[in-house]
């Protein structure tokens, strides 16, 4: 959610039960302002909170002029001092896929993972148990990256693409209408499109190239991994991800208010197919 409208956004996203305490909120308001100035971001988003056993991580993201460019991620333990996280790489994600369980809350904590590796020593081949140390920071980076890639969403029309390449915030975006707000196809993944080329020509003909340049949620696997609800009568549409429980996206139809926040343990819900 945008740091500009933090208070309103928190209020709108409160239906999921998780929010921020008043002290955290106050600290965020001040510190995010400073982050924006220091790092010269175009927009600062408060991404959410990952609950650890000892302490929680508060995550923020900075967006540059081009809205679709990779966002910089920062974390903080006390909502005041922010540290930049390294960008995620493929190896990081693969490496941390073996780590299970909760986050500790200490970025320097190391997970130990024993692997059986075949070691060639001369002519002998034997398996050796290798203990690999994985830092929690790496795990944090890869989890945030995964969540971003799979469930960070924005409504259709909020960003538009210029012919020169960069994506901008659409200043004339006035919100989705009510009928559009209930459809999964009106929401896009906030990332570089992956499936766009796979659409048929017929579908592509209907797309507006300046608005429809990202993947919509319609074809997400598994189907039914999003729960769309209208709260407060029809005044607020809330999407909750069932794949990463804790991700809440809210949007007030016909207004410019929208945003998403993740408050959770940072673990994927692999049991989703059983639970639907």
């Amino acid at each position, binding site marked *: 959610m945008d740091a500009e409208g933090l208070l309103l956004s928190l209020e709108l996203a409160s239906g999921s*039960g998780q929010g921020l305490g008043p*002290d955290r909120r106050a600290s965020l308001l001040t510190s995010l302002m400073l982050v924006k100035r220091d790092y010269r971001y175009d927009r600062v988003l408060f991404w959410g909170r990952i609950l650890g056993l000892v302490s929680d991580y508060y995550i923020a993201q900075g967006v540059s002029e081009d809205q679709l460019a990779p966002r910089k991620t920062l974390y903080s333990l006390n909502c005041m001092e922010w540290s930049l996280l390294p960008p995620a790489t493929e190896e990081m994600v693969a490496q941390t896929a073996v780590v299970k369980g909760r986050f500790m809350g200490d970025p320097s904590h190391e997970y130990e993972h024993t692997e059986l590796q075949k070691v060639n020593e001369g002519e002998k081949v034997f398996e050796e148990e290798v203990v690999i140390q994985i830092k929690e920071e790496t795990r944090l980076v890869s989890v945030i990256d995964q969540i971003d890639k799979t469930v960070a969403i924005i409504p259709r029309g909020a960003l538009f693409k210029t012919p020169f390449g960069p994506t901008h915030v659409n200043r004339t975006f006035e919100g989705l209408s009510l009928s559009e707000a209930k459809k999964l196809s009106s929401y896009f993944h906030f990332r570089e499109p992956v499936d766009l080329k796979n659409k048929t020509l017929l579908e592509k003909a209907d797309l507006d190239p300046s608005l429809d340049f990202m993947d919509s949620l319609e074809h997400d696997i598994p189907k039914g991994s999003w729960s769309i609800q209208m709260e407060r009568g029809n005044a607020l549409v809330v999407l909750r991800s*069932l794949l990463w429980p804790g991700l809440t996206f809210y949007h007030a139809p016909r207004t410019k208010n929208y945003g998403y926040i993740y408050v959770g343990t940072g673990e994927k819900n*692999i049991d989703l197919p*059983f639970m639907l």
Partner: protein
Amino acid sequence: MEDLTSLKQEQENQEPGKAGPPWEGKTAASPQSPEPESSEPLEEELGPDIGPQPRSRPPWSPQSKVITSLGDPKEPGASSSPASLQEPSPTPSPLALSREDLVAALRSDRTASVTLEAGTLHSDPLEQSPDKRESTPHHTGQPEANTFQQSQQPKSHVCGSTDVSYSNSKQKELRFHTFQEEDSNSEHELDQLRPGASEAVPSVLDTAIQNAKAYLLKTSSKSGLNLYDHLSSMLTKILDERPENAVDIIENISQDVKMAHFSKKLDTLQNEKEMLPTYEIAEKQKALFLQGHLEGVDQELEDEIAENSLPNVMESAFYFEQAGIGLGTDETYRIFLALKQLTDTHPIQRCRFWGKILGLEKNYIVAEVEFREGEDEEEVEEEDVAEERDNGESEADEDEEDELPKSFYKAPQAIPKEESRTGANKYVYFVCNEPGTSWVKLPSVTPAQIVIARKIKKFFTGQLDAPIISYPPFPGNESNYLRAQIARISAGTHISPLGFYQFGEEEGEEEEEVEGGRDSFEENTDFEGIQVIDLVESLSNWVHHVQHILPQGRCNWFNPIQKNEEEEEEEDEEKEEEKGEEPEFIEPEVGPPLLTPISEDLEIQNIPPWTTRLSSNLVPQYAIAVLRSNRWPGAYAFSNGKKFENLYIGWGNKYSPDNYTPPFPPPVYQEYPSGPEITEMDDPSVEEEQAFRAAQEAVVLAAEKNEETEEDEDDEDDYD
């Protein structure tokens, strides 16, 4: 002069005057009427500007009159007049001088008057000349008249013979006028020619402008709009709103303007339909707020305050909010009012806001309620299906000749559910989807439901009658599953500070072998509170105050082996059972007794079962202790030393770091006793059959033989 007179067809004055072409375009000073009186005021106006011209006034006035006459657009001959005017001037030099002076003066005047509103522009040029003459005596209106005339004349240039019905584009006309006048100011010669040219034949520029305008006004065949109007409304909108970097969003603005045309008609209908649910919910919630206005307010108030069955939800919400947990103040207040409504409509002893369970389509708001003594509503007892399935004793089969093999499968006896007010059914739960909608009571939970709920993992859809499709099949629909989960969550996560509750003193009959432990407690009135720091640091300062649910599905152990007693009898904790005497002895299940500290809770694979936090590290002296359950994500408890509260907001599932694997179906059961009737054997081969038949025949023969020997001996010979 003669030429002049020819020009002044409609003019009364016939005096010669060199109304130079400059005057035509800029006759700000030229009087409306050719009459000398009007010229006087005109001269007066110009007086301050044109000092050295008093002497030229007399000759000037006729000039101006001539100018006026020349200004008549309907006089085609006027074009040639200026040219001819200049020739026969008796006093060319002073005239020229005066003319130039006047030009200078007029220029300044004109610019001033041009900016005057063109509101006076309206009527046809045709009418203007008679108007001019008539308005002569109206000297007061002269400045207007000046403008009038001045703008009228340029107008004549512009429209020529075309219609002058420009409704909205007067600003543009003014621009045209200034353009023209300034143009005419620049060079006298040009001016001499221009009026002539424009009046005789519209100039190339004018034609181009007219064509362009006509094109812009062309109505689109598709939409009925024209570009001119669209552009003007768009520019109006931009000028009104003044967005930043308007050029970047000009296309969107254009789209919006177009959409504004069309959406008006459909707006009312569509909006109504869409907003209907919002209004409905608002109506219901309005009813919540108005419920307080009942009759006999005073007495009711006292009653309400005395009963005190409603919890102080707002206070708890405040504390939870310190930790960042909660539903938002407004929503919580609505829930508060909904609870009040619940307590008003049902005879409730105590009520508590249990929490919120999220679902796929709708959510559940759960209230934990304890009815007043003796006010329980009777529940429909569901028939014990299991008992009827007992085939072992069925008598129907015995009538048949061919006895079917009897299965000796006996369904395990269904464990009866606990009586209300005890164990897992200690409280009654009400749910609603949104505050304002009606509360629905959830049925009591049976042990079987709890046992199976432990084996499945499902999301709630939000509809109470939705079926639960799972393996093992859940006996019931979503309301039963919801109730089972609520029971599990309560048993697992409802905690209180140590000492807040204590066992009652009257808990007699403390038998040695009491199973299940004590199940009642009461508030400790002498509770002094525990330091918040202690609450955070040590888990042993918190205890469970809800009974643990045994693997059987009940809180109090029920021995299913009761062959000697009636099967429908329910087990109370005071009753002794026959345990050791039965051959089938089942170990009674024992769980942690009531009021066990949570430090005894099992860890989940090295993860502590509870996470404790201080609500704020910045101001520790006023912070509260907040506990988060790791086993049931979404369960919270807070305490500020004296007060405490539990809350659950989540999806209603237990946490497990491993994947969920559904249980395997059991192996095929040996239902029937194996015997020759059902044992499988190979079909006999042909040889075996023949041998069998032969053997049988032999036996028959032998039997017959025996019979014969016993009978007549005479027949013996025959049977050989």
